[in-house]
């Protein structure tokens, strides 16, 4: 084991890589058990992803030879992607997902920020509103009444049915509010004395200090909107309004006539086409993941979890 002294921070918790004198050196058995557990867990996560990406890129010949799956494409080709993007369905569903993610996240951030700021100061009706929000963590109104509400609002088959029910989350509210409460009150008081309105204080003082938490909460909302599938199953019948997750469910998980609906009559095995759809849904998450991770390091999330 290394005896170098490192004070690098890993995920917000500072660790010293020097072994304290009282800690015995672990035996070889312990070391290897630990290594096996960690390696197996990591491989189980990475292998399916590699398999899916490789298979989506593999050419016909190799796929047929390998019997359906490859771990490494020998002659990478984008043929499968060309095919899924030829028909309108995948592009449409990507458009839908992008729309609900962007609009939904902006809306959710607006609702959450205003609510969190208003309740982070002592304010009229503050307490009952906070209690009303926290109660949502303990109880759910139920599937049927929620469905009836969406129907009453005339939102069935409307993209707003995928946006509005997700426009506020109690957990994100708690994270945001506890961050706002840590902003020194003097800053806000002095701005108020200078005649700033509450909106100006929020916009010019509080938000610039809260970029990290806004980024984290925004990413959380965005991932939630991108990943949501059940609302679409409930509320959307029209194929042209399917988000990518519902498309994925219907074509890959249920495997119902993917080729027909995508207008595919050519030869590539369906596997690589299905894999391409999986990758299309996966890539945006992989793209934002480094940002999500960067903010774990700031301890924003763990801090909030500890309350």
């Amino acid at each position: 084991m290394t005896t170098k002294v490192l004070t690098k921070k890993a995920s917000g918790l500072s660790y010293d890589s020097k072994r304290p004198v009282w800690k015995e050196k672990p035996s070889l058995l312990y070391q290897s058990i630990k290594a096996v557990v960690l390696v197996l867990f990591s491989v189980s996560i990475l292998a399916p992803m590699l398999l899916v990406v490789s298979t989506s890129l593999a050419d016909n010949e190799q796929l047929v030879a390998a019997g359906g799956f490859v771990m490494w494409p020998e002659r990478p080709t984008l043929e499968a992607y060309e095919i899924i993007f030829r028909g309108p369905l995948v592009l449409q569903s990507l458009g839908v997902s992008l729309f609900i993610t962007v609009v939904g996240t902006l809306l959710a951030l607006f609702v959450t920020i205003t609510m969190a700021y208003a309740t982070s100061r002592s304010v009229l009706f503050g307490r009952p509103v906070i209690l009303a929000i926290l109660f949502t963590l303990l109880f759910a109104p139920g599937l049927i009444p929620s469905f009836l509400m969406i129907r009453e609002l005339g939102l069935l088959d409307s993209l707003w049915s995928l946006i509005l029910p997700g426009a506020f989350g109690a957990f994100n509210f708690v994270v945001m509010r506890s961050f706002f409460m840590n902003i020194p009150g003097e800053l806000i008081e002095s701005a108020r004395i200078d005649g700033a309105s509450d909106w100006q204080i929020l916009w010019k003082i509080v938000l610039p200090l809260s970029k990290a938490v806004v980024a984290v909460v925004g990413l959380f909302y965005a991932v939630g909107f991108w990943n949501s599938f059940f609302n679409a199953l409930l509320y959307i019948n029209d194929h042209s309004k399917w988000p990518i997750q519902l498309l994925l469910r219907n074509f890959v998980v249920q495997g119902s006539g993917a080729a027909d609906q995508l207008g595919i009559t050519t030869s590539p095995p369906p596997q690589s086409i299905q894999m391409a759809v999986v990758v299309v849904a996966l890539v945006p998450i992989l793209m934002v993941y480094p940002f999500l991770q960067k903010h774990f390091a700031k301890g924003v999330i763990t801090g909030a979890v500890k309350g």
Partner: protein
Amino acid sequence: MSKKQARSQGGPVLRKSFRSRLRRDKQMLLMMVPGVLFLLLFFYIPILGNVIAFQDYQPYLGIGDSLWVGWQNFADLFINPDFVHAFWNTLYLAAWQLVFLFPVPLILALIVDSLMSPRIRKVFQSIAYLPHFLSWVLVIAFFQQMLGGAGFINNSLRQLGMDTIPFMTNPDTFPVLVVVQMIWKDAGWAMIIFLAALATIDVSLYEAAAADGAGRWRRVWHVTLPGLRPVIILLLILRIGDILSVGFEQFILQRDAVGAGAAEVLDTFTYYTGIVGGGWSSGAAAGLAKGVVSLLLIWGANKLAHKFGEDGIFAKKVG
């Protein structure tokens, strides 16, 4: 963010008249409007919509004109074998999760915490957190590609001339599959809370224990686990409140493959009875029963935690 601090930020908390406070807080109240509107439309009004559980709800009549039937829908549920099955199956699957899922993040956290190399720690955490951010649809798709009938492993078995294994469609092993999927998706993420809690344990406690001759396992037992007790209890309470939910999307995605016998839980029963089958009132009754029981469970678990001298989830720290 102590209470005292929070209070001092809002200016003097003198008893002002309602009217002057209203004037002072006008803009703040305006800021609450979007959130309050959301709560009303998508939470509190739908809660009232649960009255249809006590009605023979007919969509063309609406809530106003549908016939009242009192507790009849609930009475019907308890003699409905499908509901009874869904109920027991939910508890069965929840027990599996509690026993086999709960300890995994704790064990992973203990291993990661004991690593000396920050780099290995970081790489592992990066990998382990990732699946948490994937949708259940993607997770099931991955599992299907690996373990499904036409998946990678069975494909390889077939090529080797061996029998295939129905990982994804065998109702008997479904609880194992479900727990494995949950571990794959969320164990790494759940580890984060334990890691944060481990970091708060005072190192001098370990040092003192070691000086007194406590070995590795005794230190885990006498220092680490007591240090993690509040977090473990908190998470257990949350789990208990969630026990009737087990994992809705996961089940609805796999119910076709494995059959209703193994994959029917209270939530899927509500969905298939109410929305697919049009039995609005019995679906709503099942949903309401589940919601109320969950609330009681979480309340009871919290009471119990207070008895054991722990904070639980609501330690009167609201506000």
